[in-house]
């Protein structure tokens, strides 16, 4: 039995110059064959353009995240091509959807398994505040168990909003001092959540 085979008979030559964007170099002093800048800036530049997100999708927002990660909205454009489903290899925890009280300890466990530096983004009303579910079984915002860097409002947020939240995270990551994670302030923050 034969069946029609479809293939691309008019391939378009890709123009790399159109599809690749370059980030600007950080502020610094440069000349012939040398460039000096702060180490923090270089590290931040590298980190922010190669974030490895861990999608922690539980409900509706997870479906919008699927749309964000799929071809139409394409999260990969921001350097987050690789979704890491293993907490130990990723640096951005994206919590999308309602976190029930039964799930709270699991979420915390996942956060603890991530290596420093780690960032957290709470996508959607439920993850940020419990949303419309002010009930006995729902955790009223994930910031009750883990520290959160960026909140994205919406129920569910549109993919554009998720991308915006992601860009906010990139901004934070890019500006972060490499000493922050060792500072007393940060330790106090973690201690506030009972994390040593």
């Amino acid at each position, binding site marked *: 039995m034969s*069946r029609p085979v*479809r293939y691309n008979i008019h391939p378009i030559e890709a123009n790399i110059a159109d599809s690749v964007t370059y980030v600007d170099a950080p502020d610094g002093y440069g000349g012939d064959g040398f460039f000096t800048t702060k180490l923090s800036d270089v590290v931040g530049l590298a980190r922010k353009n190669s974030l490895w997100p861990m999608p*922690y999708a*539980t*409900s*509706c927002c997870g*479906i*919008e995240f*699927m*749309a964000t990660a*799929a*071809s*139409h909205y394409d999260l990969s454009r921001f350097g987050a091509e690789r979704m890491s*489903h293993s907490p130990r290899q990723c640096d951005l925890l994206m919590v999308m*959807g*309602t*976190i*029930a009280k*039964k*799930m709270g300890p*699991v979420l915390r466990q*996942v956060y603890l398994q991530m290596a420093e530096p780690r960032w957290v983004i709470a996508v959607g009303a439920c993850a940020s505040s419990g949303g*419309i*579910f002010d*009930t*006995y*079984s*729902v955790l009223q915002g994930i910031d009750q168990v883990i520290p959160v860097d960026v909140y994205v409002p919406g*129920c*569910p947020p*549109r993919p554009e909003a998720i991308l915006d939240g992601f860009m906010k995270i990139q901004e934070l990551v890019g500006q972060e001092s490499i000493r922050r994670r060792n500072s007393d302030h940060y330790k106090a923050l973690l201690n506030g959540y009972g994390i040593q």
Partner: protein
Amino acid sequence: MSDHNITLAEDAIERKTTTINLGPTHPATHGVFQNIMELDGERVVSSDQTVGYIHRAFEKLAERRPLYQITPITDRLNYCSSPINNMGWHLTCEKLLGVQTPKRVDYLRVIIMELARIADHLICNSIVGVDAGAFTGFLYVMQYRELIYEIYEEVCGSRLTTNIGRIGGFERNFTNTAFTKLEKFLKEYPVALGELESLLTRNRIFMERTIGGGPISAERALNYGFTGPNLRAAGVDYDVRVHSPYSSYQDFEFDIPVGKTGDNYDRFLVRNQEMWQSMRIIQQAYNKVQEFKGTDAEVYHADVPEYYLPKKEDVYTKMEALIWHFKIIMGEVDMPKGEVYQSVEGGNGELGFYMISDGGRTPFRLHFRRPCFIYYQAYPELVKDSMLSDAILTMSSLNLIAGELDA
């Protein structure tokens, strides 16, 4: 028996099974399900499920809310096909309140519900592809799901959790843009679906992965309370749209695809075929909607001022409309006493609403019959003696939606 057999003592080989924990955040489980599996090598000996990781107490919440405030809760049941849940809820209210909807409203509802069914099946089938190792199909068809979402947006303003419609009809008429987008979808989508089918349906790798995985007989499926595509894949032609027609489904001509063995491949085929049938229904409904002429072509809700929210312009300018708006929103309109059960064919089975009203402003009790909560309990039986990787595939082909399962 030859003589060369080596006879071993009874306990010479030590047999051991491994216990592994899948979930609740395992990437392969598509939702928050926990499975503790006992494995013999790669074969599943037994599995034990834990659910409830996203229990949000919908039923208790619904006891505190007037009818219109429950619609957003139903959105979040099966969020892949929210409009079906919304319509099911409105149909339940209409049954209790005795509201008759005009034909045009019914047909418009059918268009939206079938679009939702396509969106639901599309996610499920492309994810089955992903779990079998074909990521391309998923990335490709997600473009076409966006077309459906654009139609939703044009009708109700929102993409995923739609909160679409009102008791008695829609909040506004479909615009011409909505119909143009629908035409675009009807034209472009069959090509994409055809390509998804030619990518997977007769693909040898896909067939070998899915045929025979997670089978269930018709008897067991019925005993386990299967409904929807999963039951039809087992060979039972039960479809709520046909057996208890709602929203004028009796006016349409379509087939119920059935499978034979109830395995992953049959489930995939049934869903694919249902998408084609949904296309047929949408086309028929669209033609029927076009046939309305004159004032009939403007009808988008039933004439029930007690339950249908007045227009926003009127609320701001007319006293009476403001009073009705207030009464309806606050649930001050009298509800009849009674018990009502209404079911619709949701994306993954019979979605039922059982409401007891004591005449107060909120339902006395509202119970959702969530199809995947009921059929997920068959999972240990489905995956027994299959490979671990096939168990993952079985899970995704059952179309389990955590939000609906845990309510």
